């Protein structure tokens, strides 16, 4: 008798626990997803809907006016192109230079414990707050007359992308057995030939994920671009959007639409790297 009662009580507690758990999960899901929805919805509203109180939860008709505005009637296209060039250029630079360096660090024993020293130095650059780098970088770029050029940003983004590539790729190379190149070397291949024909194809998935991470970081970067660019010759999208926000009269619609457009490549990137995401975001510390 008492046995069934305590069983019943346990079942009730179990139900309450399950209900509480799903309520918590639902609240979390709403908290994380609603802001994303709200940006997209705002960009699709009309002027009247945007400022309506109470808020319009679902836009009446999808107004594409703001998208048309930013795409055809402003410097948005120019800024987007700058972002593409800077993100692409800096990624290419960091991936090529970094992969070569990582291979050398992973495979060869250099004198004076250089492997260890260089690896530690590269990891420690992750600790550098960007504001610490940008003050001297600005003065250096100014003396080289590179301020307000896309080249300045491409070079400056190597500050964080190059160490990232070296660190990630070293991890991927370390996972491959050395016997792979050794047999190629016996067959009379050069070290470079062994690297290019045998190792590079094997790390291609890791290399692609690493490159996508560099693209994301460069596409999103704000502080360096804010300091190193001034005109449409080099302004990137984040700085363009920030200029909208910090003006006296804020153009909310255009700003939201620009935000949505800046977000689109990241949707694609997120799907591409999701398998390597934890590893990339944790700087290789967690191999999830």
């Amino acid at each position, binding site marked *: 008798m008492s046995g069934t009662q305590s069983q019943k009580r346990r079942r009730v507690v179990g139900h309450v626990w399950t209900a509480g*758990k799903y309520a*918590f*999960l639902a609240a979390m899901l709403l908290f*994380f*997803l609603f*802001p*994303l929805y*709200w*940006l997209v919805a705002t960009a699709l509203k009309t002027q009247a809907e*945007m400022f309506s*109180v*109470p*808020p319009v939860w679902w836009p009446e008709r999808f107004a594409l006016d703001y998208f048309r505005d930013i795409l055809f009637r402003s410097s948005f296209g120019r800024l987007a192109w700058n972002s593409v060039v800077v993100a692409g250029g800096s990624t290419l630079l960091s991936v090529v*230079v970094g992969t*070569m360096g990582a291979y050398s*660090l992973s495979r060869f024993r250099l*004198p004076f414990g250089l492997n260890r020293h260089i690896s530690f130095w*590269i990891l420690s*650059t992750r*600790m*550098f*707050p*960007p*504001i*610490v*780098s940008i*003050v*001297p970088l*600005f003065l*250096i770029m100014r003396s080289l007359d590179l301020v307000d050029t896309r080249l300045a940003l491409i070079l400056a983004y*190597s500050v964080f992308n190059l160490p990232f590539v070296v660190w990630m790729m070293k991890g991927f190379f370390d996972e491959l057995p*050395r*016997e792979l*190149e050794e*047999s190629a*070397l016996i067959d009379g291949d050069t070290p470079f030939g062994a690297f290019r024909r045998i190792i590079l194809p094997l790390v291609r998935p890791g290399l692609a994920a690493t490159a996508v991470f560099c693209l*994301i970081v460069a*596409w*999103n970067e*704000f*502080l360096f671009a804010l*300091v190193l660019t001034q005109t449409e010759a080099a302004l990137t999208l*984040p700085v363009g*959007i*920030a200029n909208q*926000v*910090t003006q006296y009269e*804020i153009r*909310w619609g255009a*700003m*939201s639409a620009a*935000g949505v457009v800046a*977000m689109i490549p*990241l949707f694609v990137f*997120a799907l591409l790297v*999701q398998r390597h995401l*934890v590893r990339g*975001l944790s700087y290789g*510390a967690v*191999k999830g």
Partner: protein
Amino acid sequence: MERDLATPVTSLRRAGRQGFFPYLFLAPAVALLLALTVYPLLYIVRISLYRLTPAGETFVGGENFLRLVRDPFFFQSLGQTFLLMAGALTLEFFFGLALALLLDSEIRARGLWRALLLLPMILPPVVVGVIWRLIYNPNFGVLNGALQLLGVDTTRLTWLADPSVALAALVVVDVWEWTPFVFLILLAGLQAIPEEPYEAARIDGSSAWQTFRHITLPLLAPAILVALLLRTMDLLRLFDQVFILTQGGPGFATETISLYIYKTAFRFFDFGYAAAMSLVLLVATLIVSRFYLGFLQKKERPT
């Protein structure tokens, strides 16, 4: 056969026998890093000892650092950065851990779910700022709109414009952006824990809390430390979102250390003083990360 393989093994390991190949491959990376990380560091140490004006530079020795010690704004921005960090770290850790524990057995966070959860953290921080300005706007923002529907009087809820609330509002933004990151790292950590210790605990009749306290938590500690270390370093440098959301205002209420250095250097062109503050921030960051790394090493090599 074994003997044949032995020769190239040593030749591959030792760089000398490969001629210049290893150095040739490493040289561009080292050169670029020297130019972009070491040279600027030396440069900033130098200019921290100077006063830079358009007319030229004067050597002032430790004056910039003395000024820093007496600058209440410097300490306020440093304090606010730490306050923001403490609030965000705490909430992100608890929500991230709760989510990871609840979802560990339920779903394999794959595919669309993971991609959606990823979005806040890989979104441009500037866009994150835009989103939350749309939410926090006191007049037509959706937060006050929703509160009004619930019958709350929102006339005095100005969020980012209220000095006593603005910093907390920024914490919420960071929690939104980065809790999924903490969650994903802790989930990866949980899923890497083997089954055996749990089975042993079940046989011993441990309670759920005992199992969590004595098995899950210690085995999850490295993942927790990595997540907290990375979040700490990023929070110490927080800039973009604050720049978009409040510009450090109202007044000085949400000024972070990065923002204060930025304004000093690029609005007031006081590069020497900005350099001195940058060095203090760098040292603070190194000390804090050293602290975490010490813990991490202790965890990895149990005595």
